[in-house]
């Protein structure tokens, strides 16, 4: 029973979702949107679980003061600070001037001018929704612009360094195929750099007839060999995903119950 019920749910829902793809009737479309809605609701609750687990783990680590406890403390401080700035930031928002808003509305849309002033909602003392409105909540906007954005961009920027070290280490023409790959990589790298591609064209391909422009060669490499290889991988992936789906639908594999069935 403990095994059959989840399997039944997975199979029935799986087949229904596949059917929905081919059968566009109202009922099935409605079913799909309801399922998507449930997914979102579950996601929202799971987020609470996730955040709770994050806080708990880091709290314990910070309290024990073991190795690296400072990281845990920073995580908690960061979480609390950002949370407070986002949710309580609404308190620091200066009330809007209603006169100004009305003027803008009437100027830009004469048709809307007929709306009674009383129809505009009364100014609330605290607007929770405005907490994340960065044009108003300057505390949150400051933290976002000057703490979160630079940190996020820094991690992404590490890629430049890692690409260089990985390329130096791994791109070696050990045999013919590796050599071809290396050649293609160098052409694309130089073709994608405006400086080299421009001077290649100016100094070489404009004077020597049979040497094409570096940009064109790059485009060709990206568009044909690259896309061909990609499609090959995608055919395999598509069929493998189909295979995996069938294995799950017929119960050979039950990832929702940790691994293979039976």
């Amino acid at each position, binding site marked *: 029973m403990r095994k059959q019920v989840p399997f039944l749910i997975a199979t029935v829902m799986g087949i229904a979702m596949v059917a929905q793809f081919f059968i566009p009737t109202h009922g099935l479309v409605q079913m799909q*949107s309801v399922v998507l809605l449930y997914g979102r609701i579950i996601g929202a609750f799971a987020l609470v679980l996730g955040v709770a687990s994050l806080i708990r783990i880091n709290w314990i680590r910070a309290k024990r003061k073991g190795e690296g406890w400072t990281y845990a403390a920073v995580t908690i401080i960061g979480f609390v600070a950002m949370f407070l700035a986002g949710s309580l930031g609404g308190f620091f928002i200066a009330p809007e001037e209603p006169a100004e808003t009305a003027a803008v509305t009437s100027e830009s849309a004469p048709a809307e001018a007929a709306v009674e002033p009383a129809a505009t909602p009364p100014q609330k003392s605290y607007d929770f929704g405005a907490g994340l409105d960065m044009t108003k909540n300057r505390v949150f906007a400051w933290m976002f612009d000057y703490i979160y954005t630079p940190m996020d*961009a820094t991690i992404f920027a590490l890629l430049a360094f890692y690409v260089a070290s990985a390329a130096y280490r791994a791109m070696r023409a050990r045999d013919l195929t590796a050599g071809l790959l290396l050649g293609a990589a160098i052409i694309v790298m130089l073709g994608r750099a405006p400086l080299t591609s421009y001077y290649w064209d100016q100094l070489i391909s404009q004077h020597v007839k049979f040497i094409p422009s570096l940009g064109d060669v790059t485009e060709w490499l990206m568009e044909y060999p690259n896309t061909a290889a990609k499609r090959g991988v995608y055919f395999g992936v598509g069929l493998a995903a189909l295979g995996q789906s069938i294995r799950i639908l017929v119960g050979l594999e039950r990832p929702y119950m940790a691994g293979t069935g039976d």
Partner: protein
Amino acid sequence: MAQQPHVKRDIWASLLKIDRRIVFVFIFVALTVPFLIPGMNVPVETQPPAEKLFAAIEALPSGSDVIISFDYGPSTKPELSPMATALARHCFSRDIRIYAMAFYLEGPAIGEQILREVAEEYGKEEHVDYVNLGYKPGGPAAVIMGMAAGVSQVFPTDKNNTPLGDIPAMSHFKKLSDIELCISLSASTYPEAWAGFAKARVGVPCAGGVTAVMAADFYAFLDTGQLVGCLMGMAGAAEYEELLVSNKVNENAYGTATQGMASQSMAHIVIVAFVAIGNIAMYMSLRNQRRSGSRRRKGGSRSVNS
């Protein structure tokens, strides 16, 4: 006499295993120095993916409506925001209305900043010439198909809680099929989702702007016409800036992307140089090994799978 080849081999062997921190220093210098030298702009040659997108917008009559979806966060801002700026300039210069939205939580804030700056440049007004609809969770399928049925079903208000009924520009955008072009700027595969839903199901042309890391993914979509054009990485943004200037849309369109091209070019050259050094060193040390009769093969790195 016997010492000479030994010393040589040592040089090649050490070139085969340059410490990664040395590589990092070279990359750092190559990236930062061009930024510190003012006016070090490199000439940019435009490529078809960017040209196609430019042509698509150029072909839109004034008064058209375009969606720009800011599907990226702060991390990829340096790469994708120049695209947004250039696209917004192009649209506003042709009196095309822009509807900004986002599948990324941080997207609307980024879009807000860019649109406001460019709108000021062109004397455009929020709610008349552009609208920022904000972030919508729930995934592209639900949101795009929801917009196909009616924008107000998905976005009852704009980002700042203004009801859509109070926004004059929204009278031109009741449902997705009112839109002439959807552009998704993304560090992941959101343009694919736009092509899959907005283009395939609703028939609205779509375009993309993606980070260089993701660029290879999108050539197939250009071939099939699922995307009318695509800006590939910062180079794509620089190409668009170049297109704006050379087609006299905006003489001052050169921005951070064009500026960044010098850094990018230098970094590419440094990487190619290191790759070349590694290969020459490998070749020389293999030759030396063969000469000295040793059959031991030394790889430069750990075993790498095929």
